């Protein structure tokens, strides 16, 4: 095994519900994700891609199988160690989930303050720099209510990346964006990944961005049915 691989999944199974309603959603999934790569998880609705993403992102407890994230085994990991691991990750959601009463800068700062109180000025510089990178230097003090959908998503990306996470998990980050904005967002993720060796795992249905991925994993009925590099 390559010790550098940030995500290693082996024989992962997952069920939802209890008793007669118990239903298996993920079947014997195994995969390995290389550092700095952009991997896209595809598949129809209900194929289990989001479940796999949340299991890898330690947002759900692993029931069966193994998920090794940044060298830590998640099966049986304590809540505390999962919280500490999450601080090394970045999450971008389909909905931006920005806090409506915080400015763009304050929302981005939340991605830094989770690590504790630091030098306020340095944190603000880092947040401003990140907003510069996503093209929102002139919108730092804007509340989310005064930003367009694309701008909000870019703030969410800045928030996810400002702490320089080792892995970014993104769920349909372009779903609410027009083609141009979607393209820009994914190009930005790919470029930042390249610059910072950030590993990105993205769930998407958006065929327009597939050519930006290093690898495309397709799931159906909870199983990996293809694992390819784009042509």
């Amino acid at each position, binding site marked *: 095994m390559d010790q550098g691989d940030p995500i290693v999944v082996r024989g992962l199974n997952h069920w939802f519900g209890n008793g007669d309603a118990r239903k298996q959603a993920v079947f014997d999934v195994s995969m390995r994700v290389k550092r700095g790569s952009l991997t896209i998880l595809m598949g129809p609705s209900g194929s289990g891609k989001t479940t796999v993403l949340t299991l890898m992102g330690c947002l759900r407890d692993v029931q069966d199988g193994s998920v090794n994230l940044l060298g830590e085994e998640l099966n049986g990991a304590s809540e505390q160690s999962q*919280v500490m691991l999450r601080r090394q990750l970045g999450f971008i959601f389909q909905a931006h989930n920005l806090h409506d009463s915080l400015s763009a800068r304050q929302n981005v700062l939340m991605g830094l303050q989770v690590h504790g109180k630091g030098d306020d000025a340095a944190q603000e510089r880092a947040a401003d720099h990140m907003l510069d990178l996503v093209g929102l230097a002139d919108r730092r003090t804007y509340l989310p209510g005064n930003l367009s959908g694309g701008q909000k998503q870019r703030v969410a990306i800045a928030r996810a990346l400002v702490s320089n996470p080792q892995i970014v998990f993104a769920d349909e980050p372009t779903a609410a964006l027009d083609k141009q904005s979607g393209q820009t967002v994914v190009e930005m993720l790919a470029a930042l990944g390249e610059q910072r060796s950030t590993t990105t795992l993205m769930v998407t249905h958006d065929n327009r961005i597939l050519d930006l991925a290093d690898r495309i994993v397709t799931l159906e009925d909870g199983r990996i049915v293809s694992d390819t590099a784009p042509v």
Partner: protein
Amino acid sequence: MTALLSRLLGRIPIGWLQLTHSKSRLTVALAGVAFANVLVFVQLGISGGLNQTINLSYQPIQADIIISSSDANTLSDGSPVARQRMFQALSVPGVAQATPLYLALTDWVREDGGSTSLQVYGFPPEAGNFVNPLYADRLPDLRLPSTALLDRQSRGVSFEDDDLPTLNAPLEAELGGVAMDIIGTFSIGAGFSADGNLLVSDQTFLRLFAQRSAGTPSHILVRAEPGYDLTSLSERISTAISSDAVIVRPLQEAIASDVSYQTTERPTGLIFGFGVVMGAIVGVVIVYQVLSTDVADHLREYATFKAMGYKQRFFLGLVFEEAVIMAVLGFIPGVLISLGIYAGMAAATGLPIEMDLPRAASVLVGTIVACALSGAIATRRLAAADPADLF
């Protein structure tokens, strides 16, 4: 404010920003907290007024020990005491002086047609040592038949400073059908059981209340020799009297017992106490409603923070931040409105209803505790903020 809170909290003051982001919700929340504060303050004000009037009712009396009927829960109720108890008490070593005290209520129909109920205190004129030094020197004047000192703070009574009744220029009054001369004044104020007070000699008292007899005063007042422990002296007097019909206590103990009885066993005291509890509950419910709605409205954002690695205590801190801000900001209008209500109630009733610092401070602390309690209940909804649901 945001910068100040940032410094205090060491993080972005999300609670403050969240509250001020929705001005209408903040206004409703503060109005709710202020309303609850006013409810509590009004109840405490009246309750405090009750306590104060009980204490004031003892103001004319100067004594170390009081001998009362065993069924007398307050100064003005209970059966009379046989005057022979006074002589029995005087035989106990350590007792310096004793005097009977006569108490009863009467009505004064004023010249303007209004009526003022008066608590009448009857002292022997030679018992100046048992009367408040502020007006004890007037006691000998009361030897004149049908003369009295009137409480100038009695409800419905008003005198200009240069128009006060004196011995040479008395105010004629008819009390309970008996013509009286008011030859001076003193100050106590209205209470819950009477509009004011009147000080008379024992003989005038018996003229006013023909059904009462000199041999059965309301209480016996005792002065102790210097250096005697009042509790043990009371016990010795009680032993000497040897009767279950009376209770012998240091005066301060009797006052405390009176306050306790009237505030915890009489319906009025219980109602005020209940009102305080109700006010607190209203405050908790209002703040809980606001915080709970606020948490519910921000579940996705909180779940996002959870996904980012924020711990539960961060969210608890955030909700408590909101609770404390609401408590403090709601308290300010609450205390200002209450001050206005106090002034109105005091003017309308003549009762000593006043705001004091300990009461204001305790209500502020209580408000913060109640809001924090509401916050603690509201944080249960945070459990619903599951980051896995965001995907």
